[in-house]
């Protein structure tokens, strides 16, 4: 395995992983974690941390409506982050970008501000069995409250969408199709472009949960032609507490506001109020200023690299991990789709995933054990949990070797033969 690792490291010489690792303070500390839980949240490069610091140390003013220099600087930085976001996902312009506190709030915004005012009994909401809870519960709640019906595109045993019945599932009653772009359990990259086209044909809206795809792939919302597109900053090298909802302008105009408060209004009287222009209509209260600025810095960091190299590198890393894991006795890997993202869920016979994660932690290897906020997938597979290793371009094949060696040790430790 050590030979392979060396070979891997050489063939990836074009991406200077060591240089990249130097950009991440946590990877230059005294005890460097083998951090393989990137699908949960990623590490942060120094440039992101310092963009946040700069705001707090040099111009920590509130945005909009400030007439003084500090406030104008903060406003410009905040709105620049919106521009960067628009460019990052190829939105036509920054008015398509609503800042939220995360993917979860982005999806809830749609469920509240569009769903509650547009769905009625008989209408259908179509999601998939592969969704993260954040793209299930908002729809369960809105279905319960509006009388609409929530339906699911089933998945196959090996972690792909089962589209055999799609023409019945996606029908004239379907008002919105909300689907995960890249699975946080299987890694599956779903054929969302195809489903969006199909949904458009029958006049249904579309929402893409891109929390796992945006960090790893260049995305193009204009080409996808979806109506809504949601993702989180903290999963793509950015701060916690910031997310993005891309929403088509006509929909933003037509939608009710979500939260009420400062910033989102134009005029308030005691009787009634009018709303600010989009996208600010959907940003009530003091926004997540430092966080938006940090997210902008994260996008800059990613675009400063050759993305093709990053993708190749993560792909090679993932393939190497799959291959190495498969050599372990009692190993089951869930999902075998291609194309896929850098996330692998697995179980080892005779070791509960939580025990495995516990032993790996002792080896300084951080992986996730659990249902990964996707209980319907667990139910489908007839298990309660998996262990999940997920990578980012700062990970190395040596770290994957450590993962595998630790799993072997865990088997011994737990008394398995």
């Amino acid at each position: 395995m050590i030979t392979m690792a060396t070979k891997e490291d050489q063939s990836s010489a074009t991406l200077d992983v060591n240089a990249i690792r130097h950009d991440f303070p946590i990877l230059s500390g005294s005890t460097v974690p083998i951090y393989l839980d990137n699908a949960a949240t990623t590490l942060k490069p120094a440039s992101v941390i310092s963009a946040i610091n700069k705001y707090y140390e040099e111009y920590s003013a509130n945005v909009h409506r400030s007439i003084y220099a500090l406030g104008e600087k903060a406003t410009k930085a905040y709105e620049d982050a919106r521009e960067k976001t628009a460019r990052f996902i190829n939105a036509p312009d920054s008015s398509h970008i609503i800042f939220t506190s995360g993917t979860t709030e982005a999806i809830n915004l749609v469920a509240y501000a569009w769903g509650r005012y547009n769905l009625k009994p008989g209408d259908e909401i179509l999601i998939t069995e592969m969704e993260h809870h954040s793209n299930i519960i908002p729809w369960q709640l809105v279905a319960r409250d509006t009388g609409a019906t929530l339906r699911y595109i089933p998945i196959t045993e090996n972690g792909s969408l089962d589209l055999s019945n799609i023409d019945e599932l996606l029908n004239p009653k379907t008002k919105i199709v909300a689907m995960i772009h890249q699975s946080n359990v299987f890694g599956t990259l779903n054929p969302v472009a195809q489903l969006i086209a199909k949904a458009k044909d029958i006049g249904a809206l579309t929402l893409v949960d891109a929390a796992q795809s945006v960090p790893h792939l260049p995305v193009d919302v204009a080409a996808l032609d979806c109506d809504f597109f949601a993702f989180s900053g903290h999963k793509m090298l950015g701060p916690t507490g910031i997310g993005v909802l891309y929403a088509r302008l006509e929909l933003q105009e037509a939608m009710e506001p979500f939260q009420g408060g400062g910033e989102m209004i134009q005029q308030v009287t005691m009787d009634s109020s009018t709303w600010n222009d989009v996208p600010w209509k959907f940003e009530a209260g003091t926004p997540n200023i430092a966080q938006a600025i940090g997210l902008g810095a994260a996008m800059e960091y990613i675009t400063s690299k050759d993305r093709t190299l990053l993708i190749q590198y993560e792909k090679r890393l993932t393939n190497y991990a799959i291959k190495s894991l498969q050599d372990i006795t009692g190993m089951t890997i869930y999902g075998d789709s291609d194309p896929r993202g850098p996330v692998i869920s697995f179980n080892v016979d005779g070791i509960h995933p939580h025990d495995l994660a516990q032993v790996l932690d002792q080896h300084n290897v951080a992986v996730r054990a659990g249902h990964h906020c996707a209980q319907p997938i667990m139910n489908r597979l007839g298990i309660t949990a998996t262990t999940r290793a997920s990578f980012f371009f700062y990970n190395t094949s040596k770290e994957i070797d450590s993962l595998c060696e630790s799993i072997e040790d865990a088997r011994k430790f737990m008394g398995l033969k």
Partner: protein
Amino acid sequence: MDDLRELYQELILDHNQNPHNYGEMDDPTATADGFNPLCGDRLTLYLRMSDEVVEDIKFVGSGCAISKASASIMTTLLKGKTRKEAITLFEMFHKMVTTGELPEGDLGKLAVLSGVYKYPARVKCAVLAWHTSKNALEGKESVAKTE
């Protein structure tokens, strides 16, 4: 790894691989379900009381080594105890796994779980079976959750 061996003592691994009193019961006087929301693991506990004494006790379910071993050892300890003794044992055990304090009384083999308190995320594993049997002993209907 030495630290971790304190958590996963050999006795725990033994009970995990060969849990005692594992299986369903035909004629329980009480049953209860336990659920650990942190991991999704579940456990069903069967109890047969005769007068105020635990005549038989069994369990089935999914769970990690800690929870299985804890359930297994618990069943061996509770058998023959009175309802009151069982509840007292629950309290002593609960204190031990949350604080690390080895209680005065007789906790017998349960002391192998005294290392759990150092792993807050795993305390719920250790107490799952206990919460469930407390519910069964007290005739509570609702699913026992680990606090």
